[in-house]
């Protein structure tokens, strides 16, 4: 038998599929919580099935009104926000928002938070029973709410307790979203691993503030807010790198990703997948474009499987 010769080489096949622990994604691109609504908003701009996953706005047990406006302001290559976790509540999410996402071939990550450990637990338990939720991302790092949020994420014991409770409340993959506003993230990552989570989301926003010198008032009503966008990318890359070296858990990397080169930078630093946040605001098709860009990079650089790049920053001996 003679082999058939192919005259034109077939388009190079590259594999973009990744696993964040038990969460399997067809490509490493996700959207960051709070920057993509519940998916519907951006579905007008492209087919959401293009993405590996989407993370929805943080969910609490009861609907929340959030902080008074102004809630956002622009900063150099970044923005501050103090939305204060306004959301429809976990029940309305499940009944009114989640069904829309069923139309898409996409993994849905539900980001959750609470004022008490019990609340975190309760939200996780409800999502556990909801069809079409594929993972839970536990936000213990929101800088914009008094109780809950960052208060948990900056204390090692609370970090463990919250995550352990959520771990117990659901069989879904659990990602811990840790606070970057600490001296060293590594011990928190270790605690999260001990609590049994499946992966880490890094990073949440940096705590910041901006003052309008004309009015002499803070630019956002909450006084301080969370800094996101390209400005924080070097901090995020450093944290992903440090945590990846120190802890075995897969990382969902984020913080200032604007294009596919930025996404690859996170992957090289140690992220298995990436979330696109503020960039969605700047360019509604950002996350989709990043999927294309990663593929292009892989073809140009002869990377057959994106997993080959994870943590492969070339550190001279």
């Amino acid at each position, binding site marked *: 038998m003679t082999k058939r010769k192919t005259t034109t080489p077939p388009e190079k096949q590259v594999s973009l599929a990744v696993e964040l622990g038990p969460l399997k994604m067809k490509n490493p691109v996700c959207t960051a919580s709070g920057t993509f609504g519940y998916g519907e*908003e*951006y579905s007008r701009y492209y087919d959401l099935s293009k993405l590996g996953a989407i993370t929805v*706005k943080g969910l609490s047990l009861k609907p929340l009104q959030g902080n008074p*406006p102004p*809630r*956002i302001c*622009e900063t*150099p*290559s970044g923005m501050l926000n103090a939305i204060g976790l306004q959301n429809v509540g976990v029940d309305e999410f499940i009944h009114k928002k989640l069904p829309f996402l069923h139309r898409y071939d996409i993994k849905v990550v539900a980001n959750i938070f609470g004022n008490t450990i019990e609340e975190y637990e309760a939200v996780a338990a409800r999502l556990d029973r909801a069809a079409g939720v594929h993972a839970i991302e536990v936000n213990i790092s929101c800088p914009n709410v008094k109780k809950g949020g960052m208060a948990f994420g900056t204390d090692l014991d609370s970090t463990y307790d919250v995550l352990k409770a959520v771990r117990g409340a659901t069989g879904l993959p659990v990602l811990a979203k840790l606070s970057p506003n600490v001296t060293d993230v590594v011990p928190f990552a270790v605690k999260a691993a001990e609590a049994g989570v499946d992966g880490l989301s890094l990073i949440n926003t940096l705590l910041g503030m901006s003052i309008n010198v004309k009015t002499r008032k803070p630019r956002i009503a909450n006084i301080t807010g969370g800094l996101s966008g390209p400005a924080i990318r070097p901090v995020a890359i450093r944290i992903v790198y440090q945590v990846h070296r120190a802890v075995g858990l897969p990382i969902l990397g984020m913080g200032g990703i604007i294009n596919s080169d930025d996404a690859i930078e996170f992957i090289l630093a140690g992220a298995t997948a990436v979330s696109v946040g503020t960039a969605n*605001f700047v360019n509604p098709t950002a996350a989709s474009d990043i999927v294309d860009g990663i593929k292009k990079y892989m073809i140009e650089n002869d990377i057959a499987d994106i997993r080959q790049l994870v943590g492969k920053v070339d550190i001279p001996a």
Partner: protein
Amino acid sequence: MQATVTSNENIFGSYFHLEVAAKGIGRKAGPGTFYMLKVASGTDPLLRRPISLHRVVSDDAVRFLYKSVGRGTNILGRLVPGDSLDIIGPLGNGFKVGKSVKLAMLVAGGIGVAPLLGLAEHIMKTRTDVTVVAFIGGRSEEDLLAIQEFRELGVRMYLCTEDGSLARCGIVTDTIEEYIKRYAPSGTKGWEMFSCGPKGMLRGVDAIASMHKIKHHASLEANMACGVGACMGCVVSILDRKAGVPVYKKVCDDGPVFDAEDVVW
């Protein structure tokens, strides 16, 4: 979408007319909707700037009227024909002119006139049963914008400037009150107000509207990040009539036009 700048004219002071072309950009653009413009390609300034539709030129071209007030709008001012401009839109609900409207009172303060010209044009074109009058106020003569265009449309105008440099000296609420005093006695049925301008002005206009039971549609502003309803950054406090409590509504998505009666000023 990538639009092409076809003209960007400094009409006077810090005011500019910007016209851009892109396939379909004007097709679904109702009066009072807006666009998000990326004024520079880098990451500083990072966010898009919201600018209202001023006038639909054609299905494939729209016109903006903007004031250069800060970094982003200053950069806009440097665009020249042929430049490419990254735009999303039209966005937002826009002005809705109900069936029962007989008199549309357009109320503009300064640059707030931008979306109202398009509204006037829209009404004149689609609703011959509606009379349009415009109350236009500004700090000074040069802040009275689009006068010529309203005149060409044949819209009756009531002008005023705070410094008296043109027309009446005073603020726009004065001219409205006078108008009402004069014409309301024969009934305000079918009268509705459509306003855009500084918050203080809108509140003042709303006081008059309530007093005379005139339905009032106010176009609000807020700092925006996404413009499409995803970030929750642009909320204003709006009374939820059913619940009887104020809730946060998104200016970009639920607005920018709200029933002024419900706005918690």
